[in-house]
């Protein structure tokens, strides 16, 4: 049985198109300092640093962990870099959590980032290699056919994705850190935006953001003494599967279902829609909301879109299970950080510290990240009460 651990500090940067005023080190540093301030701690209080980052080729800084050691106060401390493509922000938080849950470390800083304005994420995502399948499509081109298959199977109406795009931007307008601020967005505006990768329109895709996210995770003794309310980690799980194999269900991947079942079991969740108060789920393209509603067990297979269309996932419509109250990946996408932002925003909710996008009385929240060809999954459940 793992030791108890909790989030005692959260720091983020304002997500935006370009942060020309800071180096990559300065960007990462800003989130880390914000987390230390939130926890009322100093560099000396940190025992180890766990850094997450999407592929090195994105910014072309090979082994950024070496370059960022001084910016993150790692001198004389263990530091480790985690790398699981787009899910990395989530798996980094889980590696940090396991450092504390194992009893080996008392208090760990975890940080993840992306500076998309200085990167080449579109093409560096899928480097062509000799004698292997070339997938020079970028993320949207890869996921669009999978979405089309979901639409075919579920008979979902064509505007489910449009609804998600509007809903998450309205959520984002409540969050001052969100990159896109579109409080007046309409279904018509999304529908009329140009088609990028059929069926994904421009406004149904995530933006490219610069930003970093950090958390401080502490053991039970230190979390009990934390300056602000901690978010107790109630379950942690990771799963992976190959990008391609015969018979793989790319619409509803087995690894995602298994990961959810594992994390729910640890947290005592039998009915995620009922037992959880909200969820921060990695939805970089609008249609992934209904797909993940099914993959994560919030709705039976083929019916996830109904929750979306009923407003169940909308804060503004008073839904019973709001998804991505922060605006989600559709409002801010600093790739390496995006998974950690989901985990951190789930923690903010159960700390009662989510400002204008707070779900009133949230006690139990899910943080979710996926990456690669929807093949890496990282999830945690955090709660306001110590288990």
């Amino acid at each position: 049985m793992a030791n108890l651990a909790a989030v005692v500090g959260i720091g983020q940067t304002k997500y935006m198109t370009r942060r020309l005023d800071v180096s990559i080190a300065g960007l990462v540093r800003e989130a880390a300092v914000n987390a230390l301030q939130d926890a009322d701690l100093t560099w000396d209080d940190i025992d180890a640093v766990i850094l997450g980052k999407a592929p090195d080729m994105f910014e072309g800084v090979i082994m950024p962990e070496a370059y960022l050691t001084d910016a993150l106060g790692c001198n004389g401390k263990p530091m480790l870099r985690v790398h699981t493509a787009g899910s990395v922000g989530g798996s980094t938080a889980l590696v940090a959590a396991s450092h504390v849950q194992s009893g080996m470390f008392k208090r760990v800083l975890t940080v993840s980032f992306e500076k998309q304005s200085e990167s080449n994420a579109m093409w560096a995502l899928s480097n062509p290699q000799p004698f292997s399948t070339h997938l020079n499509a970028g993320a949207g081109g890869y996921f669009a056919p999978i979405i089309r298959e979901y639409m075919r199977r579920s008979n979902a109406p064509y505007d489910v994705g449009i609804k998600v795009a509007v809903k998450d931007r309205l959520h984002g307008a409540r969050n001052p850190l969100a990159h896109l601020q579109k409080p007046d967005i309409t279904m018509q505006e999304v529908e009329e935006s140009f088609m990028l990768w059929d069926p994904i329109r421009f406004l149904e895709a995530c933006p490219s953001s610069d930003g970093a996210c950090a958390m401080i995770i502490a053991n039970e003794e230190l979390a009990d003494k934390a300056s602000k309310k901690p978010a107790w980690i109630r379950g942690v799980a990771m799963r992976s599967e190959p990008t391609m194999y015969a018979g793989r269900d790319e619409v509803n991947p087995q690894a995602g279902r298994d990961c959810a079942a594992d994390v729910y079991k640890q947290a005592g969740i039998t009915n995620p829609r009922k037992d959880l108060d909200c969820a921060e789920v990695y939805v970089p393209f609008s249609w992934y909301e209904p797909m993940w509603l099914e993959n994560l067990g919030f709705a039976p297979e083929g019916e996830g879109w109904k929750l979306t269309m009923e407003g169940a996932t909308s804060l503004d419509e008073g839904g019973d299970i709001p998804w991505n109250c922060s605006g989600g990946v559709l409002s801010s996408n600093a790739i390496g950080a995006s998974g950690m932002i989901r985990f951190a925003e789930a923690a903010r909710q159960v700390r009662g510290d989510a400002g204008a996008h707070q779900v009133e009385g949230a006690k139990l929240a899910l943080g979710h990240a996926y990456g690669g060809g929807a093949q890496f999954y990282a999830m945690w459940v955090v709660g306001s009460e110590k288990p």
Partner: protein
Amino acid sequence: MSQPEVLNQAFELGYTYTRSTGPVIGRFLTELRNRNIVGIKASDGRVVVPPMEYDPNTAEELSEFVDVGQQGEIVSFAWVKEPREAHPMDVPFAWAMIKLDGADVPMIHCVAAPSEDAIATGARVQVVWADETIGYITDIRCFELV
């Protein structure tokens, strides 16, 4: 035994990137354009050149810039007898650790010298600026013996 024929394909991978240098490295490069070299004062009082953003001991942000001299002393060196294409000079030269006047740590750069015998630890050198300075590290073309 004959060598098996193995599939083989030339493979080159490259992307274009930009970089924001931030307030510290950015200042250092801007000063180079003005033919000036700056270091930064660390928490223990040492002047570090090129400047670094964060203190190596306390991890605090550093901001106290210090102008250092355009002359300095060779701390150690390695002579390059046969320069290759990628080297900064096409005649024999030295890579050297140079402690600039007013700095407490050396920085690495190349030193032009007529021969290996002409260079030594403790030798004095001075900066040679490029004809046109643009805010790159190559604004310092090399160092030469005083």
